[in-house]
């Protein structure tokens, strides 16, 4: 993982070519108001906003060449098929996959992980097998494995989380000695912001003979990702968290694994031959893409990848790192505010916190109404992690390429206002 000079002043926080103010011009929603105040959107971890380029790419498909793919021998169907293929190539290059056929389009990270659990898991996990997960997983990287364990009689074990929000890698080593068949963990925690040392953990899992599924829902939008360098077996992420539309996600897999796997869903497009009582399967990636796919959404995701490439993922990461350092400083200055998770050197642009005894939902309502700030409040679909810290809920602010330091200042003003309302 890249580390940064934590002393870099905010004044220097400029993108290589474009300022954050300029970037914000590309996001129409960022000029709207809520409760008569400018929208301050600090919930990109839940879903990012979309630049005009993404919205227009999808509109253009619907207006100029809307047709099903792989069907028509007519002009606009060929254009739609080519656009979808091109989007797949863009996504493959974005994560440095060797071949675009290793990029399976799904609905989202959740579906990608379920695909692996049903298809690969169904064929390879048996009674008594061990699956290693962690305590910091999102429900989407937990429940599919619980279901698989229930179907097969496999065991689940969990890497604990330390008080400062890091994985207990010493216990991970011990669990690997028990030779798990599968290891699945998040690259970046959606609650604590912790960036896990994925490359080393994957190498160690491989040495123990395990296959690795990386939940990259929070890392692909925010960090440079190279699946070859990570040497990861499966990688799952969502379009809507990386400036793209909802309804499109990705499963990357190593080719040999994907080719050996049975289909996940049956239907049109995923077959080679169909008879009344049996069928044979299409090649990758279509074997896993039954039915008409999310064509406009794939094209939109391709446009999102173009947009991120233009900025450069290293720049994206740097900007968020600077916002995180600034926000940690500002939030730590508020008495009664408790932050969960590691320091900025091991954290992405996500900060979970509690303020005095104010319930996060009350805090989120006050921030929304009083200062127009959108944050997330709740268990963030990670209830076991909440329980680990003895919490029912936290408030969570998260940052992206369009976040301004002045927005963090407005968050802080809102928090002080909440303290005033609740008399702290």
């Amino acid at each position, binding site marked *: 993982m890249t580390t940064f000079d934590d002393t870099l002043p905010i004044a220097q926080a400029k993108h290589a070519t474009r300022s954050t103010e300029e970037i914000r011009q590309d996001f129409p929603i960022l000029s709207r108001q809520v*409760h008569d105040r400018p929208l301050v959107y600090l919930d990109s971890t839940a879903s990012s906003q979309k630049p005009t380029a993404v919205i227009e790419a999808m509109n253009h498909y619907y207006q100029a060449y809307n047709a099903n793919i792989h069907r028509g021998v007519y002009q606009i169907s060929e254009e739609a098929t080519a656009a979808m293929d091109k989007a797949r190539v863009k996504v493959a290059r974005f994560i440095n996959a060797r071949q675009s056929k290793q990029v399976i389009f799904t609905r989202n990270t959740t579906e990608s992980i379920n695909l692996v659990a049903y298809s690969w898991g169904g064929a390879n996990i048996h009674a008594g097998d061990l699956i290693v997960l962690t305590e910091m997983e999102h429900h989407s990287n937990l429940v599919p494995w619980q279901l698989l364990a229930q179907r097969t009689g496999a065991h689940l074990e969990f890497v604990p989380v330390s008080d400062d929000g890091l994985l207990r890698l010493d216990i991970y080593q011990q669990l690997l000695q028990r030779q798990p068949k599968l290891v699945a963990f998040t690259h970046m925690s959606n609650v604590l912001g912790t960036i896990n040392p994925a490359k080393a953990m994957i190498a160690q899992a491989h040495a123990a003979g395990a296959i690795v599924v990386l939940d990259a829902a929070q890392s692909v939008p925010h960090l440079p990702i190279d699946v070859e360098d990570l040497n990861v077996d499966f990688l799952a992420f969502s379009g809507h968290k990386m400036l793209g539309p909802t309804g499109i996600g990705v499963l990357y897999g190593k080719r040999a694994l994907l080719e050996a796997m049975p289909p996940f869903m049956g239907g049109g497009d995923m077959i080679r031959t169909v008879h009344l009582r049996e069928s044979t399967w299409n090649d990758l990636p279509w074997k896993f893409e039954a039915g008409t796919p999310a064509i406009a959404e794939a094209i939109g995701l391709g446009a999102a990848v173009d947009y991120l490439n233009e900025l450069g993922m290293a720049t994206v990461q740097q900007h968020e790192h600077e916002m995180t350092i600034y926000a940690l400083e500002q939030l730590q200055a508020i008495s009664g505010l408790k932050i969960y998770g590691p320091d900025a050197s091991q954290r992405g642009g996500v900060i979970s916190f509690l303020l005095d005894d*104010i*319930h*996060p*939902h*009350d805090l989120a*309502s*006050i921030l929304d*109404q009083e200062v127009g700030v959108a944050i997330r*409040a*709740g*268990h963030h679909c990670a*209830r076991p992690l*909440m329980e680990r810290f003895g919490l*029912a*809920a936290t408030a969570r602010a998260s940052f992206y390429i369009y976040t301004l330091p002045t927005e963090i200042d407005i968050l802080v003003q809102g928090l002080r206002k909440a303290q005033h*309302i*609740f*008399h702290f």
Partner: protein
Amino acid sequence: MAMDYREYILDHSRDPRNYGELEHPDVHCEDFNPLCGDQLAMDLQVESNCVTAVRFRGRGCAISQAAASMLTEMIEGKTVQEVIALGKDDVLEALGIPISPARTKCAFLSLRVLHRGLALAGLEKLTEDDEE
């Protein structure tokens, strides 16, 4: 629609009325809001068709805790029929502020627990409205 954390709501949430539990409740139910993890348990003592004591315990936001506290005040001393008749409008009226759509589950958590408890005790048949 702006939710307004009025002083009496904060007062109810900080200093909830009828907080605790009953040793031998005739009606008991607990539930949580899966969206936010807020928890609530309610106990009722019923004597000759009248609620003679009520207690609740819970943890959650100011809206859910204040609504529960206010609901217990409405329940105490009422007949079972009167308690069964309590609905969302009564809770909203007691809260006295607009509740944004995302927060209605908080406001109605205690009401849901109450009606489920009455149903578990065989005192009420649940309607779809109560199950929401």
